[in-house]
């Protein structure tokens, strides 16, 4: 016992160091989305491979059960198939004209703090939930797309700009409507990357890239940037396109936050879509 206590006293610095580092990393992972996700993906990989191994055993035991379940499910699906031949009695009903209903509302805001030289940059604006700012609202400047609101306190809001490693924005080529996902590789704050455009599409330097407006966060056609250069990835059949961003993140001072009045409607549809079998 005496020895144990002496041991702890002798190496108290090392123990305290490990203890404090644990606290530090806990704070790091709890407060930073990026680190949190990387950490989770590591742990998921470790636990995943473990579960995989155990699964291989249990699968054999439950094979009969699984067979029964599949048979029952097949039967249920067949029933649905027959019933789907019923005639469709629904027809159009006159509804109020919503062709020109207001969809997007803009709130001007000022940037009070921003970074460009980090891997995960952020912008803080001087409008918050008291001004109607909510999570997942789009933010644009006069030049083009800026980012998406990630947090809103009562008077301020944090924006995840395009130049954030987690930023994923659905973008399309203006001239032929092919769309892809725009992300940022963390290197140059004036260049973002657009992927998922198939290589048979003809593109040229200077082609305009605009938002697709698919999730309702940004109005369709919000300018993003122009094509700077590209490489073809023969293994996937897609381009990796470098986009010169319209918006200069080093000098963004005034932005507008976009509220989509019809957002709840879009969200409901998306949820219903995901719940389909």
């Amino acid at each position: 016992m005496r020895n144990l206590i002496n041991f702890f006293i002798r190496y108290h610095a090392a123990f305290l160091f490990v203890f404090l580092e644990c606290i530090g990393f806990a704070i790091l992972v709890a407060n930073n989305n990026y680190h949190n996700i990387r950490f989770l993906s590591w742990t998921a990989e470790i636990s995943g491979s473990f579960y995989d191994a155990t699964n291989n055993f249990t699968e054999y035991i439950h094979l009969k059960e699984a067979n029964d379940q599949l048979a029952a499910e097949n039967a249920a699906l067949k029933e649905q198939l027959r019933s789907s031949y019923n005639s469709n009695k629904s027809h159009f009903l006159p509804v109020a004209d919503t062709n020109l209903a207001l969809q997007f509302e803009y709130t001007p805001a000022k940037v009070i703090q921003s970074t460009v030289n980090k891997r995960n940059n952020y912008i803080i604006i001087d409008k918050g939930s008291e001004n109607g700012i909510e999570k997942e609202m789009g933010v644009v400047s006069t030049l083009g797309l800026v980012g998406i609101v990630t947090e809103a306190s009562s008077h301020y809001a944090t924006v995840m700009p395009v130049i954030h490693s987690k930023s994923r924005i659905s973008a399309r080529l203006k001239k032929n409507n092919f769309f892809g996902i725009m992300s940022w590789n963390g290197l140059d704050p004036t260049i973002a990357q657009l992927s998922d455009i198939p290589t048979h599409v003809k593109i040229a330097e200077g082609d305009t890239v605009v938002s697709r407006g698919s999730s309702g966060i940004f109005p369709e056609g919000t300018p993003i940037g122009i094509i700077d250069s590209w490489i073809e990835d023969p293994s996937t059949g897609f381009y990796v396109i470098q986009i010169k961003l319209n918006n200069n993140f080093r000098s963004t001072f005034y932005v507008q936050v976009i509220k989509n009045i019809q957002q709840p409607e879009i969200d409901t549809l998306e949820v219903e879509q995901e719940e389909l079998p």
Partner: protein
Amino acid sequence: MIVAGYNILRFIFLVLLQVLVLNGIGLGGYINPYVYVLIILALPVETPKWATLLIGFATGLCIDLFTRTMGMHITASIFLAYIRIVVLQFMAPREGYEVGSSPSIRDMSLAWFMTYAGILIIMHHLFLFFVEAFTVDQFWYTLSKALLSSVITFILVILFQFLGSQPKRSIN
């Protein structure tokens, strides 16, 4: 007492300098010097080990609160505090440190301080930048960023050593 007060003043000054001035410079969007490491580097040699670690924690926490990078500077500063303890042990003069001395050019020598600060700054910056990246995917990019920032921090730290007037060491 005077020494403690002087260290507290340096703490406040360097934290403010770091968050208000240096973080805003971001030389070329690539280099970001972190001069606040001097808070831990310049602590008196006799500072207890546990106190060094706790001061490291507090320093990192202050910087993190201002830069909204919760955790990055905390972990890096604790790491710095710990390796300072180790490095001080290794670099101790044969007859031990003089009572009341602090790791500075005044109390030691220019060569001693440059080695001391060089090792600690590079270790701290490597730790910090790799924790920020949290991946080894862009290893060389992160490495070069860390090393270049270390050089600038190192120059600034040496500069501060010449500029900062420290209280005369009491003879006892």
